[in-house]
């Protein structure tokens, strides 16, 4: 119901910094705690699976190489973390705590990203992912989808560059569906602190179960004022229209329901969510 604990998975890549900066910026708005977690697979898994006998020396050299790679990645993650924390004036603590300035912790976990997140995401309020556009390992993208659809935790997907104001003016993609309602209620803690909130209605055909009026009424009970814009006769796909509108009016957060249709339908028809995942030009808050 509120956002007090933000989890940021780190892999030692350059994108860690973007995720951390965005997470700290949001944490400062919300007074939340940032849990930075470096995840690396067990080095023993680097060994090839083969029936051929491998000499102990070669085995050792593979393990050593994997160990070195892991150390390097961990060091890069630690560096990104300490730089981001210093720049955001965050206090580094060992156990979660609430407070101002923002408190944060860094830890290292061994295992596959998906498995570790499966365990760790349940007891946090938001998971911040770096941009998954381009040449990223599929594991990051798949982890994001898992957290969203299996764990049912909200996700913040960063854009290519860090946004230091993420959450100050928010655009909400609204089609009256259950997923949109879920994203709206999940992002409420951010909306309550935002300076401007606008709905972008993408299917203004009226007969929906959740008319825009109800959504605006819900927000106003929480003391959040909102305005709306209609995307009538869209020339582009829904996802493109949303990103265009967000970029054109300089919104720094887009809130959307993720996978409103079943995952399979989205895959078959090249869904809105998949497009958003690959083309995030502004930070996107997703809930399912």
């Amino acid at each position, binding site marked *: 119901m509120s956002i007090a604990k933000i989890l940021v998975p780190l892999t030692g890549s350059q994108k860690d910094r973007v995720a951390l900066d965005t997470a700290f910026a949001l944490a400062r708005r919300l007074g939340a705690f940032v849990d930075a977690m470096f995840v690396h697979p067990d080095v023993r898994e680097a060994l090839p699976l083969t029936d051929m006998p491998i000499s102990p020396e070669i085995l050792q050299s593979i393990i050593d190489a994997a160990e070195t790679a892991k150390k390097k990645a961990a060091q890069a993650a630690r560096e990104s973390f300490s730089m981001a924390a210093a720049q955001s004036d965050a206090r580094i603590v060992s156990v979660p705590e609430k407070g101002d300035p923002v408190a944060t912790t860094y830890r290292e976990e061994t295992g596959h990203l998906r498995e570790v997140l499966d365990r760790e995401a349940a*007891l946090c309020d938001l998971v911040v992912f770096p941009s998954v556009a381009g040449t990223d390992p599929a594991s990051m993208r798949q982890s994001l989808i898992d957290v969203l659809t299996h764990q*049912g935790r909200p996700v913040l997907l960063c854009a290519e560059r860090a946004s230091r104001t993420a959450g100050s003016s928010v655009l909400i993609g609204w089609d009256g569906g259950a997923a949109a309602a879920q994203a709206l209620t999940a992002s409420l803690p951010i909306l309550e602190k935002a300076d401007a909130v606008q709905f972008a209605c993408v299917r203004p055909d009226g007969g929906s179960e959740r008319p825009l009026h109800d959504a605006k009424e819900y927000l106003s009970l929480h003391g959040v004022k909102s305005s709306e814009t209609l995307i009538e006769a869209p020339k582009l796909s829904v996802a493109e229209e949303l990103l265009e509108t967000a970029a054109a009016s300089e919104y720094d957060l887009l809130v959307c329901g993720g996978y409103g249709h079943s995952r399979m339908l989205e895959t078959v028809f090249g869904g809105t969510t998949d497009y958003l995942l690959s083309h995030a030009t502004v930070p996107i808050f997703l809930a399912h």
Partner: protein
Amino acid sequence: MSLAKILIAVDGSERDACALMTAVRAAKLFNAHVAALFAHPDPAEVLPLIGVPLSAEAMGAIVGGNIKIFRAAADKIRETIAQVCRAEGARAVSTPVRKDAVTISFREAIGHPPHVIGAAASLSDLAVMAPCAESPKAFETALDLTLAQRRPVLLAASPPRAFRKIMIGWNNTAPAAHGISAAIPFLQKAEIIEIVCLQPPGGPDFNADPVTAYLKAYGLACSEVHLRVLGSALHRSLGKFASEHRADLLVIGGFSHSRVRETFFGGVTNEFLREPPLPVLLAH
């Protein structure tokens, strides 16, 4: 962040009073608005399915009868709301607004009740429901649909109470974690929080450390007790344990969309949901 809109499904039955009282007691913690919703089918569509064509008069009489029944129920609900307002110092309002006291609005909606309730719940912070022993199907469908929208549900139990002491059922699973994050607004207002670790005999040991760490991020402290129970007796034991220790609210997660009632540790008995010994907060 706190609760601002609490949805309550009412139907003009005796159960409304207890559910409304529970909703208002919860709303008082946050000075929230209580939106009472009476969902019923279109009177013209509730016709008996029989093989012979009905005469126009007969149809007219049935529709007229339905209208009368729904109108009587709506009147009864307004009366109950007025009573609860007097007893609890709440204010009846015509449209959802928040004032310096708890406000209650009432609206009727036409449609298949569980669907209407589920859709309305998706734009509320909490749905309060009164367990129904007479028509468990409709109640359970509404419960399923609301939980499927990932909104928490507060099951009312008699007598309604303030939410001072809260117990959380914990079995070290993601579903139980969902229950906890949904209960945060209540936990922030509670005086005592107790985590009850539910350990099946012979099962792996676990403790409440992940929960304690999560609650610390909210600045909340809690204590931990361990209860060894068999899966089949889980909910009865937990309910009994919580009422014996005078808890005002029991928090459990672990309800999945379709066969909701069977997944938290393999067996929420239907009786438990139909007649909970104390108010229960459920989340999926």
